[in-house]
């Protein structure tokens, strides 16, 4: 295990963000908090994809005569897609939450709302 590997902190962050998000989704009762947790989880997934695409010593895949080694461009393209999808789901979720709040006057879900 080499601490000087760039990908190591990134993988640790990914694992931490995913677990933190999962913990929030499972243990919190406030719906807004649940969606914040989901948003954190999405960030973690995006970081995972980028980390997988990283090549030690590579540079961004934008051509430049001074560089010979480039990182993998495909995961970056995928993450661009994933980020926008995450935002869309968040926006729609918030619209649903606002409607729910106007109907119920609360964002906590009670025992009646079983899974």
């Amino acid at each position, binding site marked *: 295990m080499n601490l000087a590997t760039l990908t190591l902190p990134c993988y640790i962050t990914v694992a931490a963000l995913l677990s933190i998000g999962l*913990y929030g989704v499972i243990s919190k009762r406030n719906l807004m908090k649940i969606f914040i947790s989901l948003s954190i989880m999405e960030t973690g997934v995006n970081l*995972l994809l980028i980390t997988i695409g990283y090549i*030690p010593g590579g540079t961004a*895949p*934008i051509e430049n005569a001074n560089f010979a080694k480039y990182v993998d461009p495909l995961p*970056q393209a995928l993450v*661009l897609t994933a980020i926008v999808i995450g935002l*869309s789901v968040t926006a729609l979720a918030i619209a649903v939450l*606002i409607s729910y709040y106007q109907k119920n006057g609360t964002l906590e879900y009670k025992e009646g709302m079983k899974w």
Partner: protein
Amino acid sequence: MRKYAGIAIALLFFAFSISIFIQLIPYDSYEGSDYHYKNPINGGVANESIPTHYIKETKNETGAVNAVTAIVVEYRGFDTLGEVTVLFTAATGVSFLLYQLRKKTQGREANLITKEGSKLVLPFALLTGAYIFIHGHLTPGGGFPGGSVIASGFLLMLLAYPKFFVNEKKLSYMESISGSIFVIIGLLGLLFATAFLQNFIPVGKPGHLFSAGIIPLIYIAIGFKVGSELSSIVQRLKEVGE
């Protein structure tokens, strides 16, 4: 109870994911010999990996300097069409859901500095947004960040002025027209070339603004579309009362 269950599951998941990721660290190159790919249609085998293909051939095949943009718009343009559609679906859904809710009453005015400051920043935000999405094939960025910078500019105005609203009809027309342009460019590819979204105009000289065929056109369409969609989402959220 629920909290401890959450902690337990999270810790288990953490251990699981770390144990998987640790095994990923050694894989740090895509140019290894066993990463050649196979064409599923005719079974032909290439002696390079897919990332290598993108790095090497992007400039010749698409004319774009930025390989990520080339992948987003050309190689995997269909994904991008889907992604734009997801955003469009979300915008439609937001307006569908928030349509009949309570409208808000008058909010407090912002102070002079915020108001004048947003006015002053707006043109710069729009210019930067345009810069970002028009240079998608040359520099980092592209339609999505560009569109969201533009939307942030309008968001600023929406925040600073309680009465400011972008014209609903114009936004929706912009959304529709730019989205249709994307699909129509794709269909023109089917018509003039052989496949959906295929490039059918000359590639030009790599590195210049007017190059890379349909990539800038599609990115401009995406930029307008994303900008107007995000603005309309935010505007809808603003209209709703508490």
